[in-house]
């Protein structure tokens, strides 16, 4: 199981949970995580596809192919209060 920390609007979209626990079964890359989110939390998935929400791995912005290792710190980052970070 991996834990994904939620912030800002992603927290609201997941029913005010602080984090999600997900089982990566089909691969160990960020895109595999996004696939799981598409299925379980389609509104969050859509924001990721639109690049409005970024995925971070170990506090760095990740890409589709970024590998996810056991114990990695994952988070979903909506647009920052000060403006778009990218």
């Amino acid at each position, binding site marked *: 199981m991996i834990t994904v920390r939620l912030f800002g609007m992603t927290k609201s979209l997941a029913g005010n949970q602080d984090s999600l626990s997900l089982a990566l079964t089909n691969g160990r890359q960020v895109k595999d995580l996004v696939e799981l989110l598409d299925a379980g939390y389609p509104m969050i998935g859509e924001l990721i596809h639109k690049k409005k929400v970024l995925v971070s791995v170990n506090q760095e912005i990740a890409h589709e192919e970024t590998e996810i290792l056991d114990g990695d710190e994952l*988070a979903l980052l909506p647009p920052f209060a000060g403006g778009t970070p990218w």
Partner: protein
Amino acid sequence: MPTDDAQFVRVQREDFSVDAEINLVRGRSKRIGGISIFLGTARDRSKGREVVSITFDHYEGMAQRKLREIRERAMKDFDIIEVAILHRYGEIGIGDNIVLIVVGAEHRAEAFRACQWAIDELKRITPIWKLEYTPEGEVWVEEHP
């Protein structure tokens, strides 16, 4: 004795004293001849809506890392002597302090330049989110110029 990072870069719930932070920077060096500050406060309107109060959410750890990175880059890229960067989180009342940048330099021009760069960069790369409470409900703020 706390490290420089812990002293000069802080993300905290409690309010801060602008005077105390200025004195912290001033105390760094007798070469400082100009101090520039940016203080961000909570306004009562946003995009035409009334705002009753604001809550800041932050990514503990990553937010501090990004602020430390901004301090290090400011010290390297500008001719300045010290920078303090503070940001509050949690519930913040209208008119209250949110964010403070204090830059000490030998001369004012570099202090102004570094201060403007630091607040712009903070807004661009720091994982902090703002929830505004309005009479119509709560809104996560996406952008602020």
